[in-house]
């Protein structure tokens, strides 16, 4: 599934928090322009994994490389400039600043653009993420969907090589998820690699070309999304899914008994593992 040239490489990453293993000799690569979805139960260490790629969490062991460049020892600001774009589960915008200013500072400091090119980048990303009509509103006054859009817009404005999306679809309605999927697919078209952690499995199956199932600090399944979801080991994690049962593909609501369904239903904002 990987394209010829690896862009992001994780090599033998290990991490434990007071005895709990969240990454156990973990290795995988993401190719240029590749899109990878990550699923796994709560506390599997998905967000921690993003933290170790993004630079705010230090791995105990192992290497993270972007375009062969070693990222270990770089803080999150340096990694952002190096090409790691990241969104948070709980959107973190600059509340007192307008949408335009939020995206502009990202273009200026993340992508290193100046003057007119920064303005053009900001304007382009705002149009692409559907924020045009809120462009001059303070970020603190946006609704949830627009906050998620802005979170995505800020990450895109840093002109990332890899985009790390952490639960951007969480808390959104089905039509809103569709809109978001559209935006993400467009940025993929622009050649950006994407890693997307999501409880709304449907979003991943529809947009990602590869899926990793992650549990207990290890990769349980890795391959085409439908193939991975059909693996026994993966199905075991999603209790209640009988072989051939594909209910979880259709969003959280019908899957009340499944781990994945319960998570998506009871508030995806609570997970920090």
């Amino acid at each position, binding site marked *: 599934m990987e394209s010829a040239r690896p862009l992001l490489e994780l090599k033998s990453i290990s991490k434990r928090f007071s005895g709990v293993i969240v990454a156990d000799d973990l290795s995988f690569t993401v190719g240029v322009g590749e899109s990878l979805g990550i699923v796994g139960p709560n506390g599997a260490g998905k967000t921690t994994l993003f933290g170790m790629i993004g630079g705010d969490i230090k791995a105990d062991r192992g290497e993270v490389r972007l375009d062969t460049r070693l990222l270990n020892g770089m803080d999150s600001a340096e990694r952002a400039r190096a090409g790691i774009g990241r969104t948070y589960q709980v959107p973190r915008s600059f509340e007192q600043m307008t949408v335009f200013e939020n995206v502009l*500072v990202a273009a200026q400091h993340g992508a290193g653009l100046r003057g007119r090119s920064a303005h053009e980048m900001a304007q382009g990303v705002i149009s692409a993420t559907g924020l045009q009509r809120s462009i001059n509103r303070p970020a603190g006054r946006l609704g949830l969907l627009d906050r998620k859009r802005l979170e995505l817009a800020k990450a895109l404005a840093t002109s990332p090589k890899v985009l790390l999306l952490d639960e951007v679809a969480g808390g959104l309605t089905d039509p809103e998820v569709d809109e978001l999927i559209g935006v993400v697919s467009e940025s993929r078209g622009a050649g950006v690699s994407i890693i997307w952690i999501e409880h709304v499995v449907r979003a991943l199956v529809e947009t990602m070309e590869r899926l990793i199932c992650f549990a207990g600090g290890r990769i349980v399944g890795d391959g085409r999304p439908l193939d991975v979801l059909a693996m026994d080991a993966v199905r075991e994690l999603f209790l209640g899914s009988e072989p051939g049962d594909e209910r979880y593909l259709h969003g959280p609501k019908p899957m009340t008994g499944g781990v994945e369904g319960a998570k998506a239903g009871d508030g995806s904002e609570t997970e920090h593992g």
Partner: protein
Amino acid sequence: MLNAIIQGILLGGLVVLFACGLSLLFGVMGVINLAHGDIAVAAAYVAVAIVPVLHIPAIWIFAIVVPLFMVAGYIVQRLLIQPSLNSGPLTTLLVTFGLSVIIENLLLEIFSANSHSLAIGSLASSAFKLSSQISIAYLSLLILVVSIVVVAGVQLGLYRTRTGRIIRAVADDREAAELIGADYRHIFGIAAGLAFGTVALAGLSLAMYSQVDPSSGPDYLIFGFEAVVIGGLGSLWGTFAGGIVLGIATTIGLFLSANFGALAPHIVFLLVLALRPQGFFPKKVAV
């Protein structure tokens, strides 16, 4: 009485210059810089020391001392204040208090306890008359104009420039700012540089306006702090209003009784704190 108010507004300009940097540092970093007044006094003493050496008119000293203090501000932030930031607000208070004590004693050691002022020739005493009762000193007017320009300039810069926007972003959420590639420590350094630059301006103005001595820093700190609180934390124009209010309170106090001048601004401050603790123009988030 009208004269007292006009003189108060003029005096307020100086208070505003003192308070501006204090407001900025608090707004951006949440740091209350207890050495703020001493830094102003230090700037005045640096000027006093180099004017006779360089043989230049005192007014040119601004071009040297203000940039010097901006650089010093950046360095002090990165080396002293930054390491203390992560250990909580108490640590920054202790660090800046320590800095205050060090500056005061260094000045005492080098310049003795004598007070000094910057000689600027005829500008110091020349004035024009608005009426038979009201005369306005050119220097006071100049300081007021400078304070307006500084506040307006900083405010405009924060909203219209690349650096200003990222300062606001960092003030809002420093970790989110890191995610978009901004090194918040560098930005804090720039903010501290701005703050030190404006307070150096205040110190130089003060030395031209009256006299400074090594131990006068904390008095100016109090004035600046009161202006910030009266105006509402984190709002520069609020700080401006606070400075003017304190200036007017001082001169009206003096008008009523010679002894009341020093006390009146503090009483006004206490009244504001009791009746409107959030200040005149409070802001939810800094700057």
